């Protein structure tokens, strides 16, 4: 299988006032690749995701996705082209059921409008039926428990299940690029283990999908990521396999601070 370039940024930059939260970052990801995005708190990882998804407009640089320019496109159009994401402090639709959450994920593929809803009932019902079928299948792949509780209010789920639903919701749109923002945050080691298993399942299911994953848990990064990119103060300071990164001095410095400084303190 030939793996094509999925997404590429060139000198991507955003300033908030005087602060460059993301500063001239060059980034690439190919189809079928899993890229880890790491860096200390406040290094601009989530901002990078917000730039890719169009929530923030970059002040400079380019984003090319499947050969098309994404800069300036509204968020929903970017999502429609197959960029799906999860959120750091997960943003499920809390008052809707688990299944409804996943159904909303399918929004980009479905096409019924208000006219269909009112006057072409059979079309809408078929759409819902297919959606429900697909949604239940997705949920069942992640957890039997979610399948049986698919009518539960999403807000009543425990944290680990919420992450799963969020990933299901993102996958429901058949994305080409999946952005995972700290999926293991607030999880126990066992739950994290399960999460890594889930990510592997995703990989098996859709081989050509590209995954960018922000993580603090290095165990996850080591197991999941083909390649790692390190951000610090908005700049890319290192890039390579996990082993290359873990020996990199700049990275150690970013995470642990400079030795002289430590000595002074």
């Amino acid at each position: 299988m030939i793996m094509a370039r999925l997404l590429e940024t060139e000198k991507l930059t955003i300033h908030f006032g005087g602060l460059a939260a993301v500063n001239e970052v060059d980034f690439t990801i190919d189809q079928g690749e899993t890229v880890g995005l790491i860096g200390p708190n406040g290094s601009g990882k989530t901002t990078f995701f917000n730039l890719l998804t169009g929530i923030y407009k970059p002040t400079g640089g380019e984003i090319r996705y499947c050969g098309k320019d994404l800069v300036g496109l509204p968020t929903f159009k970017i999502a429609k082209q197959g960029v799906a994401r999860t959120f750091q402090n997960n943003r499920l639709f809390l008052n809707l059921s688990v299944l409804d959450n996943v159904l909303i994920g399918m929004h980009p593929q479905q096409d019924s409008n208000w006219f269909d809803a009112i006057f072409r009932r059979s079309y809408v019902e078929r759409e819902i039926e297919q959606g429900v079928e697909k949604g239940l299948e997705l949920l069942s792949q992640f957890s039997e428990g979610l399948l049986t509780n698919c009518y539960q209010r999403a807000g009543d789920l425990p944290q680990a299940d919420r992450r799963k639903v969020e990933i299901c919701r993102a996958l429901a749109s058949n994305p080409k690029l999946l952005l995972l923002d700290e999926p293991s945050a607030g999880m126990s080691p066992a739950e994290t283990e399960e999460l890594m298993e889930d990510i592997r399942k995703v990989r098996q299911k859709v081989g050509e999908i590209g995954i960018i994953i922000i993580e603090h848990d290095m165990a996850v990064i080591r197991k999941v990521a083909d390649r790692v990119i390190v951000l610090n103060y908005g700049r890319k300071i290192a890039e390579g396999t996990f082993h290359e990164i873990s020996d990199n001095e700049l990275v150690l410095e970013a995470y642990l601070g400079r030795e002289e400084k430590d000595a002074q303190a």
Partner: protein
Amino acid sequence: MLPRTIGRAVILLAVEAFFFILFAAFMKTYETGKVIAFLLFFIGLGVMFKEWEKARLALTGLFKEMKILAGAGFVAMLLTLPFIFQSSPYLIHICVMAGLFAILALGLNFQLGSTNVVNFATAASYGIGAYASALLAVHFHISFWLGLLVGGSLASLFGLLLGIPCMKTKDYYLSLVTIAFGLIIYILLNNFSWTGGPNGIPNIPPPSLFGHSFKEPLSLFGYQLPFQSNYYYLIFLLVGGSLVVAHRLHHSRVGLTWNAIREDEIAARCHGIDVTWYKILAFCIDAFFGGVAGTVYSHYIGFISPENFAFIVSVVVVTMVILGGMDNVFGVIIGAILLTILPEKFRAFEDFRVLIYGLIVVTMLMFRPQGLFPQKMRIYKKES
């Protein structure tokens, strides 16, 4: 098996008939003391229904099992209402008004309930519909039926206009735009000479159907029903239609998308939802409902003035949606009916009407923000 089904059907119809008779009896009560006694009885029933789980499950099970029969029985009973109230047109009038407000509340529910856009301009679309069709009828002799469509569409067009600012604004700011819009329409209606200014438009002709004017008493099965009955049946159809539309929209991709926007706008955008468009859509559909209700109102009463479309009307409709239960189609209708009928039953306290509306909203939001009938999870039929 068959006798058991018939038995259950009889029980179901008996329960419905019981409530229907109660309702009719309540409507025919005028003394404040008796009205209060009735209300206490209703509240007692409600509490019992809530606490006595076995009865509740049995009843809801019964209704779910025979949905069609339950609906048919309900419709049949409502259709007999003008016959029961034959001698008191005033009661039929209340029912017509309740229906009009039910349409307004159903419309607003798309925004307030489904999408969490607080629109305080319901009165504006109501007024635009009413004035458009009234002016067409008075000056150009356009028929009511065409006016209904024109009124609704024109209101919808204004809804679109009102929806445009929501490309840039949301929350408070959007609500401010709707308030300002409502006030602008009110001021304009009050000052334009071609809308009759504060005097409004008198002598709006009643609709007619197959040569039967709605101003004439209605003869059905040898009964002479007061002229309000014409409007009762018209509004019955319109509420029925609105209900179907609202229900269908709720159970579709559109309704689900609105809910997503209500829950989390950013997450919705990240899942490919064009938030602006769906909000504008909610504005347009709401306004269409408002325009239709306004058209019926103007031809029914025969006289409109800006006072009928003041800010307070918008707040009343908001109250109905909140009381009934946001995003619950049936709850919203019940909210509208309650808040139309109860003030009429407490005419002695007419002066306190608005005050009580205000108090209802504040207390409901504090103690039961989900309303009398909270929204329910969508349940999809399981594949067998």
